[in-house]
């Protein structure tokens, strides 16, 4: 049975307790697993084996790392603000965990004789809770950077917060389309809204055959999903958007001064955030815990099995995170911010207006409403200010402008010598 919003808030207290513990353990285990998974996958992409010593396939590597971190010295810099330095990792951790409270894992099952949905809880503003938690999580980062009393963490923390709030706007806007389609913000209802499959028929010209597509929002709202995926990577500070931790510029970013278990908490929070945005992507765009191609009443979508489907989808999403890290170089900060503010946000707003137009014209059977946004778009494109061309100042004038006593300028018509490699290639060609 697919749970709806009305099924929540009826659990006995010990069921709630079990579920809270289960979500907590799931997140910790997922973190340990994801760290290992990432290291293994990245290692494979770089043609090396990766951690393979501790436990089968090196699965216990991250557990060993965690334990080792616990037995390291806990250093607090002299200049640090003691209280805030202490509290910042706790803020990060709390926000990371709490965001996962509304993630749907499966349908209603019976647990020790009690019927209960496989989801900690669901509220009418569930997705808003995730956004709120990720917004509050920024406090942990900016406060840790500020409280360290050191230059690099301060810059790293500021960068990180600027990046996260910029991409939070894009992320928040990309979800609007999902709410428009499903008409709700509760995660269980969104999963339910994606349950039906729809029959798509190819036009007769192309053969006229038909096939069923899952009613996933990734199909119906592809632009939203693309924007969500990009901003999720920016939001979690992951490569290629891992600018707050750009080692060559900022050492370790906001957690440079942190060590021991405090550092471990930041690490935990970062990976939990990754799991959360992946889980949210699965829930909002990939039909949640449901196996595609089978009806909601099919045995494959009943009982405890859906937890497995959810986890598999989650791992695929996490694999893409790792894939990006293994493939792409880091962006420059100004390019990154420009992309967020000048591309993602306007594209998102335009897409929302177009979608609203299409939906309105569907609801009213009047094509006019779909034409309005398109006309507005064309009008906007027509009046879009084009970039001013930079005025080219001739080299002589630039040289003349320099104050007296400046360094001598090399001759302007200096020719760049042909590179030895190019010369060699030309020579080889001539020999052949």
């Amino acid at each position: 049975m697919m749970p709806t919003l009305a099924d929540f808030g009826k659990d006995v207290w010990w069921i709630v307790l079990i579920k809270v513990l289960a979500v907590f353990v799931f997140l910790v285990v997922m973190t340990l697993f994801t760290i290992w998974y990432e290291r293994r996958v990245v290692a494979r992409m770089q043609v090396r084996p990766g951690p393979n010593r501790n436990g089968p396939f090196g699965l216990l590597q991250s557990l060993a790392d965690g334990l080792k971190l616990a037995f390291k010295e806990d250093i607090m810099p002299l200049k640090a603000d003691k209280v805030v330095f202490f509290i910042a990792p706790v803020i990060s951790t709390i926000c990371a965990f709490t965001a996962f409270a509304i993630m749907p894992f499966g349908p209603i099952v019976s647990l020790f004789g009690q019927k209960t949905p496989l989801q900690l809880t669901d509220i009418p503003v569930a997705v808003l809770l995730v956004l709120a938690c990720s917004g509050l999580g920024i406090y942990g980062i900016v406060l840790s950077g500020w409280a360290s009393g050191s230059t690099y963490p301060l810059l790293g923390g500021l960068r990180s917060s600027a990046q996260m709030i910029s991409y939070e706007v894009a992320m928040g806007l990309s979800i609007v389309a999902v709410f428009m389609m499903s008409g709700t913000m509760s995660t269980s209802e969104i999963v339910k809204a994606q349950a039906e499959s729809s029959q798509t028929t190819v036009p007769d010209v192309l053969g006229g055959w038909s096939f069923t597509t899952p009613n996933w929002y990734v199909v119906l709202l592809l632009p939203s999903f693309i924007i969500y995926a990009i901003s999720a990577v920016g939001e979690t500070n992951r490569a290629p958007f891992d600018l707050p931790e750009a080692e060559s510029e900022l050492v370790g970013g906001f957690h440079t001064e942190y060590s021991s278990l405090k550092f471990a908490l930041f690490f935990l929070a970062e990976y939990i955030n990754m799991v959360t945005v992946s889980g949210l992507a699965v829930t909002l765009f990939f039909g949640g815990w449901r196996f595609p191609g089978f009806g909601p009443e099919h045995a494959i979508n009943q009982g405890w099995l859906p937890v497995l489907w959810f986890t598999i989808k989650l791992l695929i999403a996490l694999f893409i995170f790792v894939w990006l890290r293994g493939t792409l170089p880091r962006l420059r900060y100004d390019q990154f911010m420009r992309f967020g503010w000048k591309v993602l946000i306007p594209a998102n707003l335009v897409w929302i207006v177009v979608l609203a137009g299409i939906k309105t014209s569907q609801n009213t059977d009047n094509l006019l409403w779909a034409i309005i946004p398109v006309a507005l778009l064309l009008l906007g494109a027509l009046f879009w200010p084009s970039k001013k061309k930079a005025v080219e100042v001739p080299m002589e004038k630039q040289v003349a402008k320099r104050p007296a006593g400046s360094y001598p300028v090399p001759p302007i018509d200096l020719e760049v010598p042909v590179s030895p490699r190019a010369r060699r290639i030309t020579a080889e060609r001539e020999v052949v």
Partner: protein
Amino acid sequence: MSLSAYVPIVGLFALAGAFGLFSVAAAPFIGPRRFNRAKLDAYECGIEPTPQPIGGGRFPVKFYLTAMLFIVFDIEIIFLYPWAVSFNMLGVFGFVEMVIFIITVFIAYTYVWRRGGLDWD
């Protein structure tokens, strides 16, 4: 729908808070402690730390500007959410209203763009 659906969130919040506080509080006792003056200095690639003005030092105004812009757009999002949820009930009226609202924000947005508020350098 009662408030009881919110209780598990508080539960998870409390558990995570207890876990975080415990880890942070336990860290100094579990790990070793060997005093070294240099260790307590701010990390700065091995040189003497640069003296900072009181209060953590100054930072580029760009960050402040980004935060201000964020507020504008975040409020826009908060307006869009309830509208999106009840989109099918609002009909043509809701659509036209939201188009007008988005255009208004867009005018401010182009203004900021033209004034260079979105350029990082």
